[in-house]
């Protein structure tokens, strides 16, 4: 296969990766900014603190898009080892996997950030606890995106130079599709759980350890589907010969 085809598939993968990856985080950050405005209009005296909370929440939400950017840069500038159809399908698959992987948790991270801004304006006395719950909720919500990053890095750095069979090319392509789609739902679902927990801590701060634990167990269960997707991806990558 011509080298230019490998480069072309790398460009296609990079475009998919950054294009899809930009959707989720932008929507999520919009939720946070909207809620911050609502909070400030309710409680103008807290505007400085709400603004700080908004920026921190948005920065964490951006992580998903930053992962996409990194994978897109690696796809553009990396020199490839393989020179066959498997390598080409791995490039596109990497882009799709990271792009879709960043979509879900980008939207999902918006919910805890938004609730944190609103709750802080309503109940300024719990700002520390809200900040901790928001950070932990958003970080755990990004777990599916991190699985997508893991699979993308595997796809990017695996050596496909000897594999010439069409079945292996299809398996490598499907590994990216499996992990990419598998990460969308858990990313949004975990965000809903985290948002509700942050709101609950604002209403009843004595319950914060219990709420944090419940949130984490719920998020872990909702993320089990993304773990299934990762298991199938790894089987497709390492077991299919």
């Amino acid at each position, binding site marked *: 296969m011509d080298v230019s085809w490998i480069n072309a598939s790398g460009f296609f993968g990079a475009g998919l990766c950054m294009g899809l990856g930009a959707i989720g985080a932008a929507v999520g950050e919009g939720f946070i900014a909207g809620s911050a405005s609502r909070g400030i209009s309710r409680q103008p005296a807290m505007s400085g603190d709400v603004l700080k909370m908004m920026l*921190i929440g948005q*920065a*964490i939400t951006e*992580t998903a898009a*930053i*992962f996409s*950017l*990194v994978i897109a*840069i*690696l796809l553009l*500038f*990396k020199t490839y080892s393989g020179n066959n159809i498997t390598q080409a399908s791995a490039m596109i698959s990497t882009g799709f996997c990271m792009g879709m992987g960043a979509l879900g948790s980008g939207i999902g991270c918006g919910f805890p950030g938004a609730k944190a801004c609103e709750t802080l304006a309503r109940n300024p006395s719990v700002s520390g*606890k809200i900040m*901790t719950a928001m*950070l*932990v909720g958003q*970080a*755990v919500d*990004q*777990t599916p995106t*991190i*699985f997508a*990053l*893991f699979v993308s890095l595997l796809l990017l750095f695996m050596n496909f130079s000897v594999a010439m069979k069409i079945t292996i090319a299809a398996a490598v392509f499907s590994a990216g599709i499996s992990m990419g789609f598998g990460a969308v739902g858990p990313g949004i679902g975990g965000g809903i759980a985290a948002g509700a927990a942050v709101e609950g801590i604002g209403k009843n701060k004595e319950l*914060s*350890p219990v709420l*944090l*634990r419940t949130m*984490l*167990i719920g998020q*872990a269960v909702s*993320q*089990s589907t993304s*773990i*299934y997707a*990762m*298991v199938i991806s790894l089987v497709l990558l390492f077991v299919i010969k």
Partner: protein
Amino acid sequence: MEEIGKIVKITFHLFGYNITVNTETIIMSWIIMAFLMILSLILYKKASLIPNTLQTIIEPLIEGFDKLVKDTLETDDRKYYALITALFIFLFLCNIIGIIPGCEEPTKDLNTPLGYGIMGFVIAHYSGIKVKGLKKYLSEYLQPFFIMAPLNLIGELAKIVSISFRLFGNIMGGSIIIIVVSHLVHNLVLPPFLYAFFGLFDGTIQAFVFAMLTLVYITLQVKE
């Protein structure tokens, strides 16, 4: 652009094995450890009821973590407080050392976060077995049905992947973006702001998240 994702290492043969040492990572970690040891010795010697400048800076941090660990674990037991605080301070310095020219973040190398992730995992499960007993600990893997045992096991192991790749991805991603953008703008204007965001801001938050998640994993094992 060749420096993207590159890690300085040396390989040598010993008793028939190939041993690779990531020199830069190890040297940077040791510099941070030495700095922390000297700092803690100075603080310990000079600690007084009327605090000096350094003590005034460090004390609120330590007190805040003490309260945080107490609130999350819901006990007065201070067993885990030292671990979590030390983990945060060490990783914080690891993440922000990149802003000093010539220094590289040890956390940019996957081996560092993976090591601390496995350490937290082992501590959490050891405390779980100690508090609940082996039988109750093992029976939790059979929830809700015994068929789920392999998936529960994978779910627990996936926690190591998620906690270590979170830190690694953020720090490595930040350094790659800094390299590429600095190259594209010929090192003009933008790089200091990028260092401020990825080094200082993101580094602090990711170190806090890593310490907090380790604490939360311990809590999930110890409670219930």
